[in-house]
Each structure stands twice: as structure tokens, then as C-alpha cells.
């Protein structure tokens, strides 16, 4: 294979099609651990059955290899894991393309109907901990550092029902240090008020089907402040987060307004998106409408699904890529600075290809290592896979190559048959499973197997993976903004494990370097406020950077 081979792609547009070239992106199926995401199928339809499938890729045992943790459903409407088929699973990466199921020894089999997962080292002990978001029950696992985990939910103060809404149905979560005190705090995405006893009955084409979100009442999200002693305080109200009622599906964090503090973007289902701007005093101001990200060009609140933040045009400002329901497109919001955005879904070429898809988990990564971040989304319709819409529910995933100049091309067809396979996909986590510098994808399918897409993109482009170790900042370095300079120009990225839907991705920051083998300058803006500068960094390595 030659590194410089380019493939022609058609820039989508009905009236005028332009052809350009791009480094190919290709994936192949990699044998995945045996696991099926169980939804507790029943004749009666319960909404959580459409939502399972969270997955995380992270290094739980610090051996330098990404392991896989998948959460699972339960019986419905009982919400009980009454057998091993419903067990959440931890798979240790053996480093040779195989995985070992270590669920039993790790203590991570779980309870209840789980949806999402987020990992982060909340106690700064050097081992990644796990938060699992579920229906009426969340779980915080502390990593003991010896391959085992302890359920510390009660002790951490995270098991209490909400005084106003009762038990929340959480679908995802994110670790971030919103007040930059060196401790990871926890943001939990809550979906709707739900009770199996009052589940509405809906049908489509005369057959039972899941109800639309509008049949349910929205709720606020939750923010928990890390007290530094293993406990958390619910600061949802004090921080201003609770003022916004939504039907939360996913969250991502980035410094959208460029003030050095992490802001939050939450995608909502059939309600306007939320943009929480950090006020630098422990509070947030919701400002989605005034910054142009609440609604799309289509004029309505979309069924927001997954969301990721990343700098698609290397201008130093994180942009937002959201997935949504079929016929709604997958909105792409370009950051204009000061947290103002413009939607470029149509202008970028995303609109037409994404109209036919219902997207779930998604990610902004440079899959062909050419220095420009591409877009990936797993897809599958919401409604019943057995009922009247069965023919259109399974969908193939989609990948858009970044052509530069804020243009994208749908390169799914050229990315290999593994990508084109149809399924009712949900969660997806991104990371370099084999440390070859190319970002792989792990994703789930409702009542279907776990899958791994190994990135085999042929271009011999160079890369850099950066593992940040905070000392004054949180130990994962989450929130660290990185500026990278090569002869080709400047790129930006940030440390973040959240993104997509219900999933949690490689904490290491990935850069594609194209033909450059040397990074001239690397600047790290740590959450503590420290600026660290590295010079003349060689490409093609996993670089560990300790906060000075």
C-alpha cells in the first residue's frame, strides 16, 4: 500500500457535483468479544428498550492497552438483571487482537437496566473509575487498582432520588472539572420522567410500537460537585443547570467561548439543545438560542441524539457535530468565536447524505491521519425492529471525510463492507485499540453483537497520541487544551472522554500529522492554568505528558 494514494470522492450536491480527492478511510471487522446488548424484548413496548447500548474504551489496568466496558439492559418492566445475558461486561485487551472477559473478577456485572457509561479518575489515584447511567438507578464504581471495582454509589451520595422528580432515567454522563479545582465532577444526562406502570401504549400501522418522546415529560440534568473525600454534592440547582428542562440524550464539554473554562452542550430529544456556558464562579448560563445552536436551519427542535465537540477547521474553536433522527440531517455547528455558532450542515455537504439516517453515537476524529478531523456516526432507527417499520430500522453507519475548507464527503461506500453492514446501532466509543495510531471504533447494536471496526486506512500518514497526567489538575488531565504545530500548520484538540451517545472514548488525545514526522511545538493549557510547551516532538508515538 502506498501512503499517498488518494481516492476520488464526490462532494454531494444534487445540481452540481464536484469531484475531489482525499486520503482513503477504511475499516475492517475485528473479532469482538462475545456480547449482545439485551433490551429485555417484550410484546408491550417500553421506551428504554430503544435506548440501551453504552460502551467505553479505556485502560482500567494501566497496561497501555484500551479495554472495553459495555453496559446492558435488563428484564422489562422489572428492570432486573435476572441472568448472565443481562450482565454488563468488562473485556481486558490482551494486546494481540483478543480480549478476555474479566467481568466476574472485576465486580462490574452491574444491576438494573443500564444505558450509558463514563469513565474518569475522580479520586486522582491513577486508576480510571466508572459511572454507569441507568433507568432509575445509577452506579459509581471505584477502581481498586488491582483489577477489581467497588460499588460506592451510596457512600458517594449518588443514590438519592430527586426530591421533585423521584428516580431519574439517566442515559449518559460526563466527567469534567467544571470549577478547575483539580477534581473531576460529574454531569449526568437525564432523559424523561418514566414509569413502567404508566407507560403509554402506541402503535404504528396497527402494530404496537414505541411512543414518541412527546408522550413523556422532560426533566433537568444533574451536576454533582466532587467534594474530594469520595463524596459528591448535588449542585444542579446552585449551578443553574437545573433551570433548563430537557429530554437529554448526550453531553459534551469544550471551551466553546474561549475563556479557558469548560462549557457544556446537551442534545435534547424533540426539545431545543442546551448550551451551558461556564460563568467561572460555579454557575452556568444556558445560552443555546442566543448562540445559534438550539435549533437547526430546519426550524424545529430536532430529535437530538449523540453529540461531539471538536475543531473541524483547525481554527482553535471547538465545533459541534450532532446526530438526529432520519429526515432531520446531522447538524454541524461551526464555532465563530465567543460561543457564537453558525450551522453549516448544508454548506458542508452533510445534509443530503445524513437525511436518510438516524444517527446515535458519533465522534470527531482524524481517521486517515491527514491533519483534518472527520465525522463518524453509528446509525439505526428508533422505532420497532419487529413491527411495521422493520425494513427501515437497521441502518448502515456513516463516515464523512473532511475535505478541508469546511467541506465533507460521505465516504462510507469506500470505507469497507464492515462499515456498510446494517444494524440497529446505538453506542460507539472511539480509540486506538492496537496503538497503531489509527482510531478504531467499538459499537453496539440493540439485541445484536458488540462490534469492533479496526481502522486500516492505508495512507502512511503520521500521528501522535498524547496521554496527559495531571498533578495540580485532575489526574486524567480532562479539559486540557492542546495546540500542535507542524510545518503544515496548527491543529487543536482537548482531553475529553465524553462524546457521542451513552459512551466514553479514549482519554488520549489523537492528532493526525499527514506527512510530517516532527511536531515543532506542542502547547498544553492545563485546567490548573499552567501552560506547558514541548518542542521537537517525534511523530508516531504515544506520548505521556506530566503536568509540571
Amino acid at each position, binding site marked *: 500500500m502506498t501512503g499517498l494514494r488518494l481516492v476520488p470522492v464526490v462532494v454531494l450536491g*444534487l*445540481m452540481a457535483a464536484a469531484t475531489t480527492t482525499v486520503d482513503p478511510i477504511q475499516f475492517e471487522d475485528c473479532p469482538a468479544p462475545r456480547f449482545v446488548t439485551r433490551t429485555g424484548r417484550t410484546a408491550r413496548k417500553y421506551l428504554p428498550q430503544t435506548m440501551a447500548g453504552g460502551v467505553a474504551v479505556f485502560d482500567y489496568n494501566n497496561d497501555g492497552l484500551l479495554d472495553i466496558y459495555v453496559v446492558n439492559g435488563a428484564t422489562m418492566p422489572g428492570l432486573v438483571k435476572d441472568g448472565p445475558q443481562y450482565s454488563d461486561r468488562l473485556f481486558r485487551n490482551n494486546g494481540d487482537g483478543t480480549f478476555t472477559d474479566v467481568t466476574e473478577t472485576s465486580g462490574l456485572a452491574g444491576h438494573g437496566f443500564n444505558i450509558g457509561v463514563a469513565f474518569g479518575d475522580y479520586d486522582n489515584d491513577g486508576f480510571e473509575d466508572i459511572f454507569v447511567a441507568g433507568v432509575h438507578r445509577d452506579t459509581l464504581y471505584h477502581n481498586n487498582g488491582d483489577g477489581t471495582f467497588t460499588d460506592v454509589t451510596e457512600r458517594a451520595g449518588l443514590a438519592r432520588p430527586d426530591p421533585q422528580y423521584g428516580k431519574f432515567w439517566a442515559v449518559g454522563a460526563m466527567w469534567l472539572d467544571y470549577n478547575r479545582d483539580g477534581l473531576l465532577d460529574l454531569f449526568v444526562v437525564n432523559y424523561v420522567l418514566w414509569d413502567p406502570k404508566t407507560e403509554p401504549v402506541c402503535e404504528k400501522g396497527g402494530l404496537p410500537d414505541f411512543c414518541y418522546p412527546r408522550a413523556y415529560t*422532560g426533566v433537568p440534568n444533574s451536576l454533582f460537585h466532587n467534594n474530594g473525600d469520595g463524596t459528591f454534592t448535588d449542585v444542579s440547582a446552585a449551578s443553574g443547570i437545573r433551570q433548563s428542562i430537557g429530554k437529554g440524550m448526550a453531553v459534551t464539554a469544550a471551551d466553546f467561548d474561549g475563556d479557558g473554562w469548560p462549557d457544556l452542550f446537551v442534545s435534547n430529544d424533540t426539545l431545543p439543545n442546551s448550551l451551558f456556558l461556564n460563568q467561572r464562579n460555579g454557575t452556568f448560563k444556558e445560552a443555546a*438560542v442566543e448562540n*445559534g445552536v438550539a*435549533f437547526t436551519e430546519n*426550524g424545529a427542535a430536532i430529535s437530538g441524539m449523540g453529540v461531539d465537540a471538536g475543531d473541524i477547521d483547525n481554527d482553535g474553536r471547538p465545533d459541534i457535530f450532532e446526530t438526529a433522527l432520519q*429526515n432531520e440531517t446531522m447538524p454541524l455547528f461551526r464555532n465563530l468565536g465567543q460561543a457564537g455558532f453558525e450551522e453549516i450542515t448544508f454548506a458542508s455537504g452533510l445534509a443530503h447524505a445524513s437525511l436518510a439516517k438516524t444517527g446515535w453515537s458519533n465522534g470527531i476524529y482524524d481517521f486517515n491521519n491527514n491533519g483534518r478531523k472527520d465525522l463518524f456516526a453509528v446509525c439505526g432507527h428508533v422505532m420497532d425492529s419487529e413491527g411495521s417499520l422493520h425494513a427501515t430500522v437497521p441502518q448502515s453507519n456513516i463516515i464523512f471525510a473532511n475535505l478541508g475548507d469546511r467541506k465533507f464527503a460521505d465516504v462510507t461506500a469506500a470505507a469497507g463492507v464492515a462499515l456498510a453492514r446494517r444494524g440497529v446501532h446505538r453506542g460507539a466509543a472511539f480509540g486506538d485499540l492496537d496503538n497503531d495510531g489509527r482510531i478504531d471504533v467499538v459499537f453496539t447494536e440493540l439485541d445484536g453483537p458488540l462490534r469492533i471496526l479496526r481502522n486500516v486506512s492505508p495512507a502512511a500518514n503520521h500521528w501522535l497520541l498524547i496521554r496527559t497526567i495531571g498533578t495540580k489538575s485532575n489526574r486524567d488531565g480532562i479539559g486540557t487544551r492542546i495546540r500542535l504545530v507542524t510545518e503544515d500548520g496548527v491543529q487543536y484538540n482537548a482531553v475529553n472522554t465524553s462524546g457521542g451517545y451513552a459512551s466514553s472514548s479514549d482519554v488520549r488525545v489523537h492528532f493526525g500529522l499527514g506527512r510530517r514526522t516532527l511536531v515543532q511545538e506542542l502547547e498544553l493549557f492545563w485546567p490548573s492554568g499552567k501552560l506547558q510547551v514541548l518542542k521537537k516532538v517525534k511523530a508516531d508515538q504515544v506520548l505521556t505528558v506530566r503536568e509540571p
Partner: protein
Amino acid sequence: MKLRIALALALAWLAATDASSQPQLVPSSQNGQTKPEAENDRLRQVLEREPNNKEALFRLGRLMIEEGDFASAGSLFQKYVLISPEEPGAWAYLVRCAVGQHDSGGAAGAQRQIERLAPANLALHTQAACWLAGSAISEVTRSEFELVMSLAPHQTSSGGLWYSRLGQCYEHAQEPNRATRAFQAAIDLDPDTEGHYFRLAHLLAREGMVGRASEIMTSAVAHFPHSVTTRVEAGSLELEAGNLERALELQHQAADIDPQFPGVLSLLGRIQLAQRRYPEAIDTLEQAARLAPADAGIHFYAGQAWMKTEQGTERALDHFKRSLELDPDRASTYYWLGSLYFHRNHEYRVAVRYLEQAVDRAPELEAAHQMLIQAYKRLGEDATAARQLQRYQEIVQQRAKVEAPK
């Protein structure tokens, strides 16, 4: 006299209905006074000469109602019923005045008089019930509405028109349950008028009762086997409900009856739009627009089709503008014009002009508020953007109240 006043009421209602869509006043050619002002002066002069002139009292009372001066109108009609207490039409206008002044006691008293004097006068009671629709005078409204409904078994098919109007009043007042009952009564009395089915079906669909709406239109299709309009309406409803296959089936049936009927092509174009077959949708809707150049809806959908294409922005703008010329009240057309000028042409000043019109007509159109705020910011008018944001936030607060758990 009773008959005259009842007729006058019906005509006045129709006139008022027409007037509501043509609100502009026409200056008189003589002295610059508008016609209502001149009529007002003339009637006052008559009443100065003849204080008990019933016709002048009645006409001036109606003029005052049209101007929203319910207190003055109430005084005139009170005087009228003192002179002629047995005329139910005047009492009906007193119901209108009471509603305008939120006077529940006055409304109840006037309603009792209508019931006493004309217990079975469908036109009069329908009018009173319409005036009461959506008012805070809930007990009188309920009583008058039920009275009208109780008259239904005694009506002939011509009564269907009144129940259809009653349904429209309650639909407009966002009381769908009452509107549904009224529309159903219209169908029961007058099953041979297609419009009754359409109104009920669209109401039910808007309220989320898609299955029942579909049933209504299925019965209409069976009742009007040769009607192309019924099939187009039924197809539109199925399309809006997302049942593309059924919509296409109905479109084919309609095309078999009259393939060149613009509505048939419009429906096909909309189905193609939903199927994302944009070039075909453009061809179809352009053909429909040639056949029915004065159909605002067809131009609207043609604009929607063109804007899905990269090179179609100008054609989309043309169609949306033509649609606006034909139907200047459709908020969504203003929105799309604003959106195209904002997103595609980056002409923010023009976008603002259209978006302001959109939010004026449909304040609940939240996306228009967002775009308007963005447009003002791009124009550097931050203070206006902030005011617009405040308007939007009030809407959000209202929504939060509605959605808060009980």
C-alpha cells in the same frame, strides 16, 4: 323584525369574517374620513335627533363592537333592549359586549334572554356560542355550547353549516373537544359536504389522533367515490402522519380521476419531497405551479423542494415570495425566506425583515427567534438581539410552566 335582525347577525358575522382578512380601512373620497368614521358620525347625528332610533342604536352598537369599544356598544344595546326587550338579536350582541368586558354576570343574563326568546334559533345560538368560545366566562360558554348541540337532532342538512362554523370557532379558541363534537354534528347532519370531513380530520390529526383522522377520511373517500379533492385531502393527511405508502395510494386514485388537477400534482410533489426525490419533486411542483399559478401552497412546497438543492436558492426564494404575495399571513413562509437569506445568502438585513414578520405572526416559532437573534448579532445590533432574546425567554418560561410535572 326578528327575522331581519337574525339575518343581519348572520350577514354581519360574514362581513366581519371577511373584514378580518382585509383589515385595512378605505378612505372616503370626500373629506379624508374613513367609511366607518363617517358612518359613526352620521349615526350619532341621527341619535342626537332621535335618541330612541332603534336602527341607529343597533348599527352604532355594531360599529363600536367592531372598534373594540365594548363598553359603549353595551350601553347602546342596553338602551335598545329597554325599548325592544323581546328581540333576541340585540341580547346576542349584549353577550358579545359582556365577553369583551369579561362580565360573566352580564353574559349570563343576556344568554338567558336569548334562550327565553329564541330557544331553537340555531343561527343566533351558534353566534352567541362562537362569541363565548375561548372566553373566561366558562359556565355560560358551556351552557350555550350545550344548548347549540342539543338543537342538532332537530335540524335539517342545512344546519350542518352552522355546526361547521361552531367547530371552527372552538378550534380557533383551542378547545378541540368541543370543536370535534361540532364538526361531527356537521357531518351527521350534512354528510354530503366534503369540507365537514376535512375539518374534522385535520383537527383530529393536529391533536395527535391520527388513526381517527384517517378513519374519517376513509369514510369520506367511500362517500365521495368520484371526488378528486377528497382523495387529495386524505392523501395529505396520511402524508403528514408519515404514512407515505397510503398517501401515494390515494394520490394514484386521485390521478386516475383527474391527473391534471393541481392538487394531485401538489400531493405527489410533497410525497416526493418526503421521499427525498428532490429533482422529481421540483418537476412535479413546477408543473403544478404552472397549472395553478395562484395557489400559495404549491409555491410554498416548490420553494421547499428547490431549497434542498445546492443551486436552487434563488428559485426557492422566487417561489416563497410568490407564495407570500398570494398568502401574506403564513408565518412559515416568512421563516423560510428569512432562513434562506440568513444561511445561504448571508443577507442578514433582509433575513431580519422576514424573520420579524415570522415571529410577529407565530411567536411560538422558536427557531425564528434564534435566527433573528443571530441576524441582529451579525449586524452588530447587540441591543436589539438582547431584546429579541428576552422575547424568546418569555416563551420558554411559558413552556416550562406547561411542561412542569403536576
